[in-house]
Structures are given as structure tokens and as C-alpha cells.
């Protein structure tokens, strides 16, 4: 038990370190890059007095270290600054968007795993068969796809040509009650499918190779020698071990998934953080961009930590490592 506690504590410490790193990088970028938002506010046309007053208001006349301390303090209180474009706190702007991004990324991850595991198993159990070749080619192409391209084509064919699904937004106005949930689900399908298509390849390829390795191990040979049906050897014995590296992959791909979500939301006008980033880019709303990065980084770090803790539960060896 203490082992589990220690493992969890260590993992929590790493998560905090990562968040601190993300926040510090952001602070340094904001202060060192030419487009410094606060300096941009202080336009050169002002009188020196007005400029100084403004700098003081933003705390920019203080030493860098003091600014850094204040910045951390503000972040700890969930204060991400004020949106340039909307004059409301950045946290308000982002928090109303976060649920949509979480819904999109989480559902696409679920669908990817749900489709990826059977595909990987089928490919691994008949290596060099038709399906195996197909998944290998498909995996390489899938990993090379540009997310917006996929989104645009799904939108064009399934949405605009066949009128099967809505082409943008996350729900239709004026729909309430149980119908609303169905409507949200319909709006979710295309963005979710786009994200699944670009992720699926790496999951299938990873699972395929680890499963082939696992099937060659002694315990699988023994299980077969005992006369256990092949299907049981694969699903009950080999897959359990082969799934562990796949769990790691979830953690590794999270950052990439979030990037994909930003682009997907832009294509489908999905009201998540990604679409917010796109709008903030067009309005040069730096506080929102900064807040979006910090929030997404924290989300990824938390999700990553949960993945690792799950891994620790699944594989006792990890806890001692």
C-alpha cells in the first residue's frame, strides 16, 4: 500500500513540476518576445508620463523576478488576465469552452481505442495477411494526414454532399431536453471521426507489434501447448500485456491530440478552446492565447498523470521502478 502511495506522490510531484515548467516558459516568452502584449498596450504615441503610469498599472516597471512572483501568484488564484477583445476575464472565456474540448478529445480517444484494439488484434493474429498489410499501409498514411484536410473532406462529403450530419457548431439552437443530447452527439461525430482517423494509425501499429512480440513469449506458447483455444490465448493472455505500451502511447499522444483538436475545432467551428485560439489569433488576443496554452498544458498533465497511475495499477512493476 505504501508503495502505491509513494508512486502516486512521485507522479504528482512530476505533474506539478511540468505545470511549473509550462507556466515559466510562458512567462519568459511573454516578456522576451517582441509582441509583448503589455508593451503593445503602451503605444509609443503616449506621453512618457502616461506610458509610465500604464506600465506601473501592469506591474511592468518592477524587476523581472518580482513580476514573475506576482505572475505565479495570480495564476495560483486562477487569474489568467483580461481578454483584450472581450474585456472579460480570460478564465471566463476559456472555462465555458473547456467542456467542449474535453468532450471532443475524450470521445475521440475512446473511439480510437475501441476501434484500434480489435484492428490491431486482427492484424497481429494474421501477420502478413491481407488485413495486416492493409492496417500497416493505412497506419502510415493515417499518421501522415493533416488534420484539417481530413476534417474538410469529411465535412464536404458527409455533411454537405450527403447531408448526413451537421457541418459545424456543437448543437443547434432551439433544441431542448433529450433531443439536445442527441443533437450534441450528431455534431460531435464528424470532428470526433477526423481526430480518430489521424490517431488510429499509431495505436494499431503499436498494438500490432507488441502483440506479435507477446504471442511469441513462453507463456503464450505454453498456453497454446495446453490446448487453450487461440482466441483465448490472444484476448486473455497476450493482449493484457500488449496493452501496456498502448497505455503509454495514450500519454505520449495527448499533447498531439490536443493540437489536433485545436485544428479540428477550427474546421468545424466547434466552440472549444481550439476555436477560441483561432479567434484569439485573428484578434491578436494574447492573454487568451496564453491562458489557452496554460489551461491545455494543465489538462494534458493531469490526463497524463491519470494514465500513468492507471498504468501503475495495471502493471505492479512500474510502481517500484
Amino acid at each position: 500500500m505504501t508503495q502505491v502511495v509513494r508512486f502516486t506522490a512521485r507522479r504528482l510531484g512530476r505533474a506539478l513540476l511540468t505545470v511549473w515548467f509550462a507556466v515559466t516558459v510562458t512567462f519568459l516568452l511573454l516578456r522576451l518576445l517582441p509582441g509583448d502584449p503589455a508593451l503593445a498596450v503602451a503605444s509609443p504615441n503616449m506621453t512618457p508620463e502616461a506610458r509610465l503610469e500604464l506600465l506601473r498599472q501592469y506591474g511592468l516597471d518592477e524587476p523581472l523576478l518580482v513580476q514573475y512572483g506576482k505572475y505565479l501568484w495570480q495564476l495560483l488564484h486562477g487569474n489568467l488576465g483580461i481578454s483584450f477583445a472581450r474585456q472579460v476575464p480570460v478564465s471566463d472565456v476559456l472555462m465555458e469552452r473547456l467542456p467542449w474540448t474535453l468532450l471532443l478529445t475524450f470521445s475521440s480517444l475512446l473511439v480510437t481505442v475501441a476501434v484500434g484494439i480489435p484492428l490491431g488484434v486482427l492484424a497481429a493474429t494474421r501477420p502478413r495477411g491481407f488485413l495486416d498489410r492493409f492496417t500497416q499501409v493505412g497506419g502510415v498514411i493515417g499518421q501522415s494526414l493533416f488534420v484539417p484536410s481530413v476534417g474538410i473532406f469529411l465535412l464536404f462529403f458527409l455533411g454537405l454532399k450527403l447531408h448526413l450530419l451537421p457541418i459545424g457548431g456543437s448543437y443547434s439552437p432551439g433544441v431542448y431536453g433529450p433531443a439536445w443530447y442527441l443533437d450534441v452527439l450528431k455534431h460531435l461525430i464528424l470532428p470526433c471521426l477526423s481526430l480518430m482517423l489521424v490517431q488510429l494509425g499509431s495505436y494499431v501499429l503499436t498494438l500490432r507489434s507488441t502483440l506479435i512480440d507477446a504471442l511469441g513469449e513462453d507463456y503464450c506458447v505454453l498456453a497454446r501447448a495446453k490446448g487453450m483455444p487461440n482466441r483465448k490465448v490472444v484476448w486473455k493472455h497476450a493482449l493484457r500485456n500488449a496493452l501496456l505500451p498502448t497505455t503509454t502511447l495514450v500519454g505520449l499522444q495527448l499533447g498531439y491530440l490536443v493540437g489536433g483538436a485545436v485544428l479540428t475545432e477550427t474546421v468545424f467551428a466547434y466552440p472549444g478552446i481550439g476555436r477560441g485560439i483561432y479567434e484569439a489569433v485573428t484578434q491578436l488576443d494574447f492573454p487568451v492565447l496564453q491562458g489557452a496554452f496554460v489551461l491545455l498544458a494543465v489538462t494534458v498533465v493531469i490526463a497524463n498523470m491519470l494514465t500513468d497511475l492507471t498504468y501503475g495499477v495495471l502493471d505492479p512493476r512500474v510502481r517500484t521502478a
Partner: protein
Amino acid sequence: MTATVAGLDSVTNDQVTAARATWAAFRRNPLGMISVGILVLLVIVAACAPLIAAYPTGYGDQVLQAPSGAHWFGTDNLGRDIFAEVVWGARLSIVIAALSSALAIAIGVVVAVLGAYFPKVDSIVGTVVDLCLSLPVLPLMILVAALAGPSLVTLVLVIAFFSWPEVTRVVRSQALSVVRLPYMDAARLTGGSSIWIIRKHLLPAVAPVIVVSVVLTASRAVLSAAGLAFLGLGDPTSWSWGRILYEAQQSGAMQSAWWTTLFPSLAMLALVVSATLISIAYNDARNPRARED
């Protein structure tokens, strides 16, 4: 088959190097060779863009025309020829990919090799790489590109600066296993300087991993650059594949004219898939066990 050919060579020539064996195996891989062909073709198109198509500028009166003999890839919402846009876009996309991956490789390899060679540095390197890799890179790139203002230089620097940790991760793990080998101890015993050992003994040992990294980093850089351009953070003064998609999305042309988005997407896919296949074929060719098959 290769074994016999290699055997004959070693008898007649006695100079069969690992590189030549790899190349011989690579040449027999049709997918790898086709990919090299596609990549070379794209580079030639990029280099000779002015000879192939006039720079897509100004406004034509033939707006949103479907692909035809006059306009192979059709025209966009302002009547510009999409074939010309894709050809000129190849130029910027490949330049950004080449420059940013060169920079990322340079930083990544130096950090990885120094980390592997000097154990004191390595714990820091390992931690920093882990930290960098666990952050969502695209939102970070967006923030920096927006702050610095979109331009070619910004794009190259931003992509390079956030791509080197991946290079370091791959090269470092290889370098760490090489550093422990006896010949490295022997090199140290000869009294050579650290720089000499790293340059003459460590770098050649990790060179194959670097080759693969170059290809993969460059292909990822194409996607990152396109992603930034798609969000409006590309270089607004020159054409890139991402910008064609961005304009199609902005103007709403993508909803009616499939050709505005299909062709730049295909170009990008061709580039990235062929780069990936080359790295796979190279890895197979380098691996003697895979060659036996």
C-alpha cells in the same frame, strides 16, 4: 540474395561498407525507391517553381472554376490558379521543413550527445526533454508565432525550437547505449579530447538514428507549418499549402469547391507519406536481420 551479392562484393572488392550494404538493400525496396522518387520530384518542383507556373498573384475573372485543361487544379475564389499555388506552396513548405528540421536536428543532436557523454548534464537533459515532450506543442507554437508576428523566420525558429526535444529523445537513447560500449573506453584511454571522441566515435555511431530523425522531423515540420498557416499564422507574403487551405476556409470556398482543398492536401500527404516510408525503408535496409528476409 543480398547475402550472396554482398559476399561476392567483399571477395572482389573487399571494401563493402555498411553504408553500401544498406544502400543495396534500400534499392531493392520498391516502396522506398518510389518514395525517394516522389520526394525528389517535389524538391525539383519546388526548386523550379518559376519555370513551371507563373506566381499566383492578382485577381482573375475566372472565379472558382473546376479543374480543366487551362487550370489543372481549378481556380480559387479570387480566380487564381490553384496549380500555381500548389507549385509555389511546395517551395515554402519544403524550405520551412528543411530549415527548421536542420536547426532542430543541430540543437537536438548536440544536446543529446553532450547529455549522453557527460553524465552530470544528462539528468538535466533528460528532465527538460521529458518536460518539453509532455506539453501540448501546437498551442505553444501558436502563442509564440502570434507574439513574434508571422514570417518565414518566425515559423522556422518556432518549429525548430519546439521540435528538438523529440530529436534529443531518440538520439539520446541510442547515444546512451553507445557510450557504455568498450570501444568508447578505449578511445578515452588513448587520451583523446572529449570533443575528438564525440566527433570521431560517438557521432558516427548515432548517425543512422540522426538520418531517420532528419526525415521524420522534416515531415512533421511540414504538418506543423501547415497547421500554423491554417490558423492564419503563416507567412502572409508567400504561398504555402497551409495558406491555400486557410484561404479556402476563410472565404468559404471549401464548402463548394472541393479542388481548393484537395490538391494542397494531396501534395502534403505525398510529401509526408514518402518521407515516412523512406525512414521505414532505411531502417529495414540498415537492419541485417530484416535484410535476410
